[in-house]
């Protein structure tokens, strides 16, 4: 670990972030966290792409929305799969002339 690391400190009531103006301003992008020594160099100062403009708006809240939607669609996919299995079972029941039994359920 090099000396660029700036810890986020916990005072008991709030987090204190390191001053963002510290350090060599030509190297940093104003983003400083506990991960700095590893990742700061990889954060470029390029203009955001159109997708990024959307995702970075509202303090990046849309990233959370995207994550929740991914999970939601995943659950939907699992529901659809279960549905298909039920269909298969129903079809087999009716193929074997067991409709009467399936009605008892």
């Amino acid at each position: 670990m090099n000396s660029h690391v700036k810890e986020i400190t916990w005072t008991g009531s709030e987090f204190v972030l390191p001053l963002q103006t510290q350090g060599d301003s030509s190297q940093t992008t104003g983003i400083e966290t506990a991960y700095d020594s590893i990742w700061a160099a990889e954060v470029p100062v390029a203009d955001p792409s159109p997708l990024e403009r959307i995702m970075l708006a509202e303090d990046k809240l849309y990233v959370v929305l995207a994550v929740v939607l991914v999970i939601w669609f995943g659950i939907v996919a699992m529901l659809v799969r279960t549905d298909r299995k039920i269909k298969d079972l129903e079809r087999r029941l009716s193929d074997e002339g067991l409709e009467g039994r399936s009605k008892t359920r």
Partner: protein
Amino acid sequence: MKTRTEALLKSLIVLWVTAVIFAGFLLDIPRISILEHTARNLYFHVPLWFALMAAFFVSAWHSARFLSTEDLDYDVRASHAAMVGMAFGILGLVTGMVWARFTWYVGTNKWWNNDPKQVMAAVQLMIYGAYFVLRSSFDHSEKRARVSAVYNLFAAATVPFLLYVLPRQFQSLHPGAEGNPAFDEITHPIMRLVFYPAIMGFIALFWWIYSQRVRLTLLERRLEHE
């Protein structure tokens, strides 16, 4: 389980997860640069992996039960637990990719960043993917159950290493890795209020989907035997 208890339990799960989503979005959290609101992904991305670990544990447990009892019902349970666990793992990978892309990898257009934990998780999913390839290569169900149960126990033995021990030896975006503060040090107490219930909620969701699949297969098997 009695039908009434089950219905009650499931409505509780729906309410519980709904509350987690609400609190996840609405509860005020400390602001950290880079992360900003995406810190809230702690409530959604991380519990997926806890559910995966629970799923793989359930799977290994039933494989062990199969080996000691030779009861094929345990094989059904083991395979469905692994399958649903894998689905959660895929969601975990995708959510992690989205998260990193718009935080630490803004402006790089990098969706896959070879974070040690990301790579190990992908390897983990491949190990479990091989479990299903192995299963599909047998026609005889007793033989399939026995061989795949043994493989499953090996697969389960790799979980703590691939998801805990190894990723922590390298520099990573994930807490607790080399040079990173541990989860304890960077997570505000207020976030635990949602985080722990979220883990419980996701494990409950796993159990719900898993038990549906098991019941279906057991019905199918009953149909075959009659």
